[in-house]
């Protein structure tokens, strides 16, 4: 009886996954079809699984350079976000008080601002930084990383903040008595305990930075700096879209993220063995 219940859950999961994946199936099969075939039947398997559109998409996207740029921007942004926002969140949690509350509330309140209302003043301000302080915010991957950190700070601080509160303070107090500096306490004791939430923060940030179009399109000008989403613009025409290339491009774009997710999610999930030891 219990076993039957277990099986029915598995079947339910598989069914759910199929429903969830069917749109992804549409993307996949149509990345192999020309316009006539797509029009005739968007659901059928393609006549041939030729890699023609993938190769064409890769060539047009300047794939190797684009993936290098995307990796550079995403990795650096996410590392900086994780380091800075975990530190900030920890301080905010452990040092109560009005100031911390105000800072925390400011972080979360700004999550309600649509980016569309910020982009014009943002670009103007960045341009004045570029001109007056001579720091090239524009057209550099570093400038983009800087902005990515700012825009993803709120979400990350918010997530860390919620998690850190559930960690007993006694551990830290013991270490502090041992004479460790705050820095030491945080990196040696606290940060390792944050692993599950760090994995979550990383996953969410990696995805939104990897897939972001609007911000990089406003800041990066040189062709050589284009990230992967930027380099797919060729497929989205004035009136029509080259679906096969666009879908091949999309598939190429999300494969690295899926691999990353599959690896990272293990760190969110307690291993079965680990649970047993406890």
């Amino acid at each position, binding site marked *: 009886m219990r076993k039957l219940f277990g099986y029915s859950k598995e079947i339910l999961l598989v069914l759910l996954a199929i429903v969830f994946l069917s749109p992804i199936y549409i993307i996949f099969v149509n990345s192999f079809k*020309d*316009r006539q075939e797509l029009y005739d039947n968007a659901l059928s398997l393609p006549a041939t699984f030729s890699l023609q559109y993938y190769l064409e998409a890769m060539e047009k996207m300047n794939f190797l350079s684009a993936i290098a740029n995307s990796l550079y921007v995403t990795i650096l942004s996410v590392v900086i976000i994780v380091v800075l926002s975990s530190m900030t969140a920890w301080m905010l949690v452990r040092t109560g008080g009005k100031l911390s509350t105000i800072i925390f509330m400011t972080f979360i309140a700004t999550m309600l601002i649509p980016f569309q209302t910020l982009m014009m003043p943002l670009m103007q301000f960045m341009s004045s930084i570029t001109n007056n302080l001579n720091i*090239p915010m*524009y057209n550099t991957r*570093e400038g983009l990383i800087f902005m990515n950190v700012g825009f993803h700070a709120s979400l990350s601080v918010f997530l860390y903040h919620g998690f850190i509160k559930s960690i007993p303070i006694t551990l830290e107090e013991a270490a502090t008595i041992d004479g460790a500096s705050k820095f030491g306490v945080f990196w040696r004791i606290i940060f390792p305990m944050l692993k599950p939430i760090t994995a979550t923060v990383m996953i969410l940030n990696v995805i939104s930075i990897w897939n972001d179009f609007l911000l990089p*399109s406003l800041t990066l000008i040189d062709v050589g700096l284009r990230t992967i989403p930027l380099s797919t613009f060729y497929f989205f*025409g004035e*009136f029509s*879209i080259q679906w096969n290339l666009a879908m091949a491009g999309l598939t190429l774009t999300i494969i690295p993220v899926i691999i990353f997710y599959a690896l990272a999610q293990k760190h969110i999930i307690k291993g079965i063995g680990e649970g047993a030891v406890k």
Partner: protein
Amino acid sequence: MKFQKKSLGSLVLVLVLLLLAACGGGQEEGSTSSGEEGSANKITIFQSKVEISDQLEALAKEYTEETGVEVEVLGTTGDDYFQQLQIRLNSNQGPSIFSLQHAMEAEKLKSYVADLSAEEYVKDIAPNMELKLEDKVVGIPYGVEGFGIIYNKDLVKPEDVQDLASFRSTLENFKAQDINGFGLAQDAYFLIGHISNYPFSLQPDPTDFISKLNAGEVTMAQTPEFQEFGQFMEAIKVNTPTPLSVTYDQQIGDFASGKTAMIHQGNWAAGMLQEFEMDFEYGMLPFPLMGNDKLAVGTGNNWAINSQKEEGEIQAAKDFLNWMHTSEVGKKYIVEEFGFVPALTTIEPGELDPLSQAVSEASNSGDTIPWAQNAYPANIVPNDLTPFAQQFFSEDMTGEQFVEEFDNAWQSAQ
């Protein structure tokens, strides 16, 4: 004392960060701009027609080989081109050359558009096709474009669509045969933007009519062209399936497979039509509002130069446009690679598809009606006319009510 310490600490941090950013950025700049001697050695182009991006980059490369001037072509997704342009210009990151659709955009950016009147090749632009702002030429058309009824020659004869009566009975006939007589598509311009031109274009002076309409001196409801246009829209609504769930791809696919006998489209559709296997010939007919027998021909995009750039860069941009429109290589690209129907009389059109052929002939003979949409209030088509058209096609509304609501939608856009 406490405060001082705190502010000192943050000050140090700020400085360190700025220094870091400056170093990182500085290196970057050094590596990308090596070999650059003066501003006029590099120009940037930002334009909205994604379809020609590839070819434009190739043309830019040829230009660099010939003259040594570097030409960078920026990417866009078309849809939000103008917004992006606006943001770039506002933050001093504007391109040297950009594209504009019509005089309304030029007016908005009037402090950024350079006067091109003195350019040699401007006099060769086909009559009335240049983009003007207060008598100065500020935009060079990419090419001429036209729209009308694209028809399946096996199913439709030109005399079937001569006027309202014949148009209506043709649609009724097709309905009886289970063929879609007349297809529109859901996108703003394909649903209402283009087709709404006709009653305006047929006015003796469309621009003047539009300003009177804006001022409330005339209404559509009392203008005969609009009254009949309402009847046309009613005939379409009654006799054809709803266009609201038809994408552009679907519209073209249905036409190519013979499920739709006529569609309302422009010569730009030829590119997509060629991607389908078709076993019939097709052509373009004028939309027969009030017996109209002329195609609506105009220009979709124009090249403009950013006047806020330094003198050297402006000159370099002018040189590039000049080269594009006068050199053999440039002309070849315009016709063969971009696939435009040239707007300059000095450029020979190449081998044209049937739709562009019809547009080119009409344009050369001057037998055309203008695009009134270029004088519409900014953004009225997606913002106000499309919701109204969606309402018309999804609710119970007659042709007469269509015109009344058209008036209302127009007024609410003011």
